[in-house]
């Protein structure tokens, strides 16, 4: 069978079973350490830098196909697109002038009300390098990393709304967990009624769920959910999702509310990373109950006093 080897009468190292046990235990140990602690992040970064050139190499065919497709776009499609864009531009310009008037008015009102102006968040552009190849997870990798001051926890948006959150950074890449990732949660506010809640990802690419809402909650189909900005992680007023279905079954304590993410979670190449987060004043500490030890000390002190 093993045609190229000379005959050996002695064992070749440990038996397959011993190897299986050794490497399985090693894998399980790594799994345990990686899921519970943060020790392996630096090792992961070193390996990620090693394989980075190859990852870029595999992304090349797709990029090349895209550029070829752009090259062969016909004049006709370009013309129609041009007219469409022109019309869109006219409509937008009209809206923009209205918006400017409103902005000016708003600024004046804010000054009058002695409020701090709304913070402008610095953003940086990033491009999707590739989509996660693990079917269980909703993640992207974008081409800005810790070299460009991207930090875990920063929010990623596109022109329609929140796409996700940076969860891990490498030197030149960072990993974005999409809002539709299973159990990813975003604190939101209903734009129409002002109701605050938390929206959860479902693991499905175009579905999110609003859980633990009472049957009587003021939510109807078509409501737009925007970030509330209360947690200090997400900037306020970014659109997140739109309510697509509300089921109120009195047999259950909570209403079943299904939403659809507004951002093109699987549509774009270019995304924006919101890099400055508003500085919130520190949360006041909860009042501490005096412990038994302190009480006793106090009593002793009192007794000694007279």
């Amino acid at each position: 069978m093993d045609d190229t080897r000379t005959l050996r009468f002695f064992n070749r190292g440990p038996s397959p079973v011993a190897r299986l046990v050794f490497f399985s235990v090693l894998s399980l140990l790594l799994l345990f350490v990686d899921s519970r602690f943060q020790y392996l992040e630096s090792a992961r970064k070193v390996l990620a830098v090693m394989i980075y050139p190859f990852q870029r190499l595999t992304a090349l065919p797709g990029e090349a196909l895209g550029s070829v497709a752009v090259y062969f776009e016909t004049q006709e499609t370009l013309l129609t697109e041009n007219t469409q864009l022109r019309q869109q531009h006219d409509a937008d310009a009209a809206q923009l002038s209205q918006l400017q008037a409103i902005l000016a008015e708003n600024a004046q009102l804010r000054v009058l009300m002695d409020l701090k102006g709304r913070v402008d968040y610095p953003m940086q552009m990033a491009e999707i390098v590739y989509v996660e190849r693990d079917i269980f997870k909703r993640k992207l990798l974008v081409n800005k990393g810790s070299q460009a001051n991207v930090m875990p926890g920063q929010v990623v948006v596109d022109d329609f709304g929140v796409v996700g959150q940076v969860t891990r950074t490498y030197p030149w890449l960072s990993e974005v967990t999409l809002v539709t990732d299973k159990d990813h949660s975003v604190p939101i506010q209903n734009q129409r009624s002002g109701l605050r809640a938390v929206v959860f990802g479902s693991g499905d690419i175009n579905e999110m769920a609003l859980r633990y809402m009472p049957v009587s909650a003021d939510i109807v189909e078509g409501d737009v959910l925007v970030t509330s900005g209360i947690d200090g992680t997400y900037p306020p007023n970014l659109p997140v999702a739109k309510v697509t279905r509300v089921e109120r079954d009195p047999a259950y304590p909570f209403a079943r509310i299904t939403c659809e993410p507004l951002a093109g979670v699987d549509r774009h190449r270019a995304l924006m990373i919101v890099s400055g987060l508003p500085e919130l004043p520190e949360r006041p500490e909860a009042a501490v109950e005096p412990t038994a030890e302190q009480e006793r000390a106090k009593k002793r002190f009192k007794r000694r006093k007279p």
Partner: protein
Amino acid sequence: MSNGYAKDQEFLLPANTGFIVFSLFVAVMLNWLPWHGWALALRPDFVALVLLYWCTHKPHRIGIGIAWLVGIFADVADASLFGQHALAYTVLAFGGIVLHRRVQMFDLRQQSLHVFPLLLLSYGAYAAVHWQVRGFVAWEYFLGAVTSALLWTPMTLLLQALRRPRRDPNEL
């Protein structure tokens, strides 16, 4: 196909290390292509297939240790937990090594039927870890095991063809 492939009548070049490494490299590259959506669910695991090929055909060259190492790199590239792919490939390589004599007795179609449970076991190990950590399993993930088993025949033919000695053009 059924009796066109007879192993003992065929002379294959000894697999040199460069060729093994190159085939694994190509498989890794194929796995890292930007698969997406249903294509991702149906994507055969090229790395698992090539590992299994070498484990069944050259069990003393490619073993569990190398499978584990490849798995670690796959874990980094896929941003899965450290050890998740490594465990799956370890189980796969063990299965391949234990069954290597048996698998080689059959023709290619029957080999695919032997390979399928091994792949399923490896996919199962990966999914089980995911289920333990995250609490759910995406069932369409297992479709990949079916497509991988279907790809076994063409991939074996390709690798065997590359290992066959070239005919010398100056030969009489």
